[in-house]
């Protein structure tokens, strides 16, 4: 290759001559261009070309007679040269035979391409050390050891391990997560949210960047405030969502979902370096630098006040979507009043080294408020019954409208992917949309991945109107509740349909309701 380094042959500074020794060898005479002994009359010996695959001269003759004339056809039809020795002793004789019969010179017959490996190579050697538990990295939060000690049952979230629930006694997942979710709704809970992607955004044009990246408006976000945003790919599909906080004049703290953290960073870098180099902004990942704890529940403010006795965390001092810095017993902390659970909630970040200190303080001080840690399963329950979208709704196929986020898509300004939202299918009136689903009997849980149909007895293919994206047991109402993405969902509220899961032999009559099942006005987060 003509690449600079590889054609640079200035290998050494030396120029030593080596004396070539005398050689005594016996000279050879010219070999005979002869490679195959003819068959004597009346004899029918098998004459083999490929010894392992038993390919003989007559096999190649048959292949050619039947019109398999390209050397590749011959090889594939007869399996010549395809054994474990890859034809090291047979290829050339095979070519000679084809060239003889076809009356072509060997180079015109051509040989099949040589590809690595020259000789079979152990798959174990190719793979090396990345096996078993090490086949992919495992990422753990700074509080991991605490979770382990406290009977956390872990779940893989990408390469992260997250507590799914903290098992008490003989609890199963359903019982444990219900207990944890209930405790958030009635007291206070704490959840390790370290895995969320975090990106530090700095520079005079940071607001402008956010304004272009997110679908909603960002130019007027005051310092000390956070805002929820949705970002699209250029094809109009939702890429990610999260909150971003204005830490100071030219400094923002962006959060992404755990799964999309790396992609969002590259996405921002792409636009900053290639598309809008005129924007004076720097971005850097800070995911590993901050340990995060979400504190949620009606008693979360009481807890926060105890954690930060010197800060004013009242509803006025730290309103919904507010941000402040605090002193957690000598440790600098960032406090965000944001909520994924739909409850009054806060997120506290400290530098990773202090994560375990923060966590233990929260547990210690929260004890009198009946704090319990909660895992991803309870977190799911809380977000589902509030109608907050997550990965199972933002599945790479939906646009803001589908997820009931159209209010976030600014009509006034341009943003990444906006032009795509004009496509015919994207503005169709009966476009799929996020709705809530409740079983008519208020008892039967609807399996995730079920589909909604009008007629459960229709002939196949039975037209599907939508699918169940997420299900939970509503701790608020003590009955099953699901989210679905449903065709013409806007006009389907109140309709009765069937949720079908043929894989599980389930047909469940359901009613379509609003996706905001609990606290539809969002009063709790602002209380």
């Amino acid at each position, binding site marked *: 290759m003509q690449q600079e380094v590889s054609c640079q042959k200035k290998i050494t500074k030396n120029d*030593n001559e*080596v004396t*070539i020794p005398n050689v005594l060898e*016996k000279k050879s005479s*010219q070999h005979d261009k002869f490679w195959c002994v003819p068959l004597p009359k009346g004899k029918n010996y098998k004459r083999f070309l490929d010894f392992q695959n*038993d390919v003989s001269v007559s096999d190649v003759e048959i292949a050619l007679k039947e019109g398999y004339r390209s050397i590749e056809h011959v090889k594939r039809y*007869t399996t010549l040269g395809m054994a474990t020795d890859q034809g090291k002793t047979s290829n050339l004789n095979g070519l000679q035979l084809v060239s003889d019969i076809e009356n072509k010179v060997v180079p015109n017959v051509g040989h099949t391409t040589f590809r690595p490996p020259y000789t079979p190579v152990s798959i174990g050697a190719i793979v090396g050390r990345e096996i078993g538990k090490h086949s992919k990295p495992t990422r753990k939060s700074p509080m991991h050891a605490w979770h382990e000690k406290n009977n956390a049952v872990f779940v893989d979230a990408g390469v992260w391990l997250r507590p799914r629930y903290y098992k008490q006694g003989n609890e199963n997942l359903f019982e444990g997560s219900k207990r944890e979710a209930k405790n958030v709704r009635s007291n206070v809970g704490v959840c390790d949210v370290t895995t969320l992607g975090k990106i530090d955004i700095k520079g005079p044009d940071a607001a402008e960047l956010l304004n272009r990246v997110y679908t909603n408006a960002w130019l007027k976000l005051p310092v000390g405030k956070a805002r929820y945003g949705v970002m699209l790919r250029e094809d109009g599909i939702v890429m990610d969502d999260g909150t971003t906080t204005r830490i100071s004049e030219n400094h923002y703290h962006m959060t992404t979902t755990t799964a999309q953290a790396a992609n969002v960073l590259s996405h921002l870098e792409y636009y900053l370096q290639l598309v809008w180099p005129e924007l004076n902004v720097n971005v850097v990942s800070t995911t590993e630098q901050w340990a995060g704890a979400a504190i949620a529940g009606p008693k979360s403010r009481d807890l926060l006040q105890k954690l930060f006795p010197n800060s004013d965390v009242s509803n006025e001092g730290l309103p919904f979507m507010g941000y402040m810095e605090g002193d957690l017993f000598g440790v600098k902390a960032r406090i965000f009043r944001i909520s994924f659970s739909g409850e009054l909630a806060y997120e506290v970040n400290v530098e990773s080294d202090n994560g375990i200190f923060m966590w233990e303080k929260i547990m210690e001080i929260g004890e009198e408020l009946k704090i319990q840690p909660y895992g991803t399963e309870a977190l799911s329950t809380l977000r589902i019954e509030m109608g907050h979208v997550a990965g199972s709704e933002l599945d790479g196929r939906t646009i803001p409208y589908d997820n009931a986020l159209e209010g976030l898509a600014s009509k006034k300004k341009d943003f990444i992917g906006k032009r795509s939202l004009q496509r015919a299918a994207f503005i169709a009136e009966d476009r799929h949309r996020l709705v809530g689903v409740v079983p008519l009997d208020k008892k039967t849980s609807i399996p995730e991945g079920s589909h909604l149909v009008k007629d459960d007895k229709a002939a196949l293919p039975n037209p599907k109107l939508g699918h169940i994206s997420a299900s939970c047991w509503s701790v608020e109402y003590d009955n099953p509740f699901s989210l679905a993405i449903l065709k013409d969902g806007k006009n389907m509220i109140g309709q009765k349909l069937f949720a079908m899961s043929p894989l599980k032999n389930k047909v469940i009559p359901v009613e379509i309701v609003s996706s905001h099942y609990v606290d539809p006005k969002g009063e709790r987060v602002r209380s």
Partner: protein
Amino acid sequence: MSQKFRIENVGLINRDKKLSFKFNGKTYYGYEGDTLASALIANGVHLVGRSFKYHRPRGFFGAGVDEPYAIVQLYRNGETEPNIKATEQELFEGLEAKSVNCWPSVNFDIGAINNFLKIFLPAGFYYKTFMWPKSFWYWIYEPFIRKAAGLGVASIKHDKERYEHKYEYCDLLIAGSGPSGLASAYAAANNGAKIILAEDKPRFGGSLLTSDVNIGNQSGKDWADGIIAELKTMPNVVVKNRSQIFGYYDHNMLVMSENVSDHLPKTKKYHPNKRLWYIRAKQVLISSGSIERPIVFGNNDTPGVMLSSAAKEYLKVYGVLVGRNPLVFTNNDSGYETAIEFKKHGVDPIVLDSRKNPESEIISEAKNLGISIKNSYVVVAAQGYKKVKSADIASISDDKKQLGKMENVKCDCICVSGFWTPTIHLASQSGNKTKFKEEIDAFVPGQSKQSEITLGAANGVFSLEETLKTSFAAGSELSKKNN
């Protein structure tokens, strides 16, 4: 059990260290430095397997990586591994191996019935039949065919061995430690170039281990040993045996598989079984040599038919006779070299040469030794089922179309040489469009696509003198300052 085909005082094996091993349940002995193949031949075992389709008996055809036949199931340290070439597997104490693709045994294999049905099983027969009734393909025919196919048995146990990767950069990567590899490495090393020299076999030297040549008043082997010993002392040189460069990828990235442990009864503590080297080389010298070609004749798959170079290697490297009554069938001088080695060790070969009246120093030497030579003669067919017992031979017309009267001669092996095929795989993998070289009836590398040069036999040059000259020159040219 005695190693009745082992001859005294010949070869590079360590006769002080006797090793016991088992093949198909029977215990045999060999020496340190043997391959499984050489040890079996020393014990007179030639039937090692059955072929894929017709289950015909299979013996040894080569002595190395080109081996198509001698595939065995290996048992080592409580684990088993399928599809091991007996010609590559070094012997260790307690080695166990079994024949594959035969039932109930390699001696009596039920599958061999296919050999009698072979007229019904021509190329592509399966495309033409097994279609009725419709559901029978999946339920009846295919399971039967699947069972019959495959070679060894894969254990579904988790592999306990450990494998490592290593990343290296070098000025010159040299593939093969034959004369061209050694000469170019030596010349370049003297200029201080950073060199990796890789040899897939346990011993360095390539063809010098078996050829009867003299370099700088030493035997070829002694010269090779001297060069290797000197290279090993140089800080800028890495020499690796048991290391196969198997892939030439983009931008001069080559990958080498180093066998660290397979030649030992068990992998040493903290050692890997194999080590994969990713090597980014500024320049690659391909000195991978050549592989002898067979000549095609009737029943040329019978155990006992093998490459003449393999027979020579078994004799000179392992001190093993592949037969006591050899027939050498050749179309070039290489067959004579094998015949001469036989003769020197007290065995009387017959040489059949397809050529009418070839003349050369080698042929003269053979004649002087009193070797019986038949010109314009060919082997028409091997006779014998599990081992060559005799050969049908005949004279052949000058146009190679007409055979003379058939005669039967007794022999216990047929050593074949149909000239040499350069090993051009690495060059071809690098993107090199190969060209056909009429004089040698084979493809050689053409225009280099990456920073690679092919030298010696791999480039179709079979004269040692020329090989050394160009290789020394290439080594110093590529490593000196004004390039």
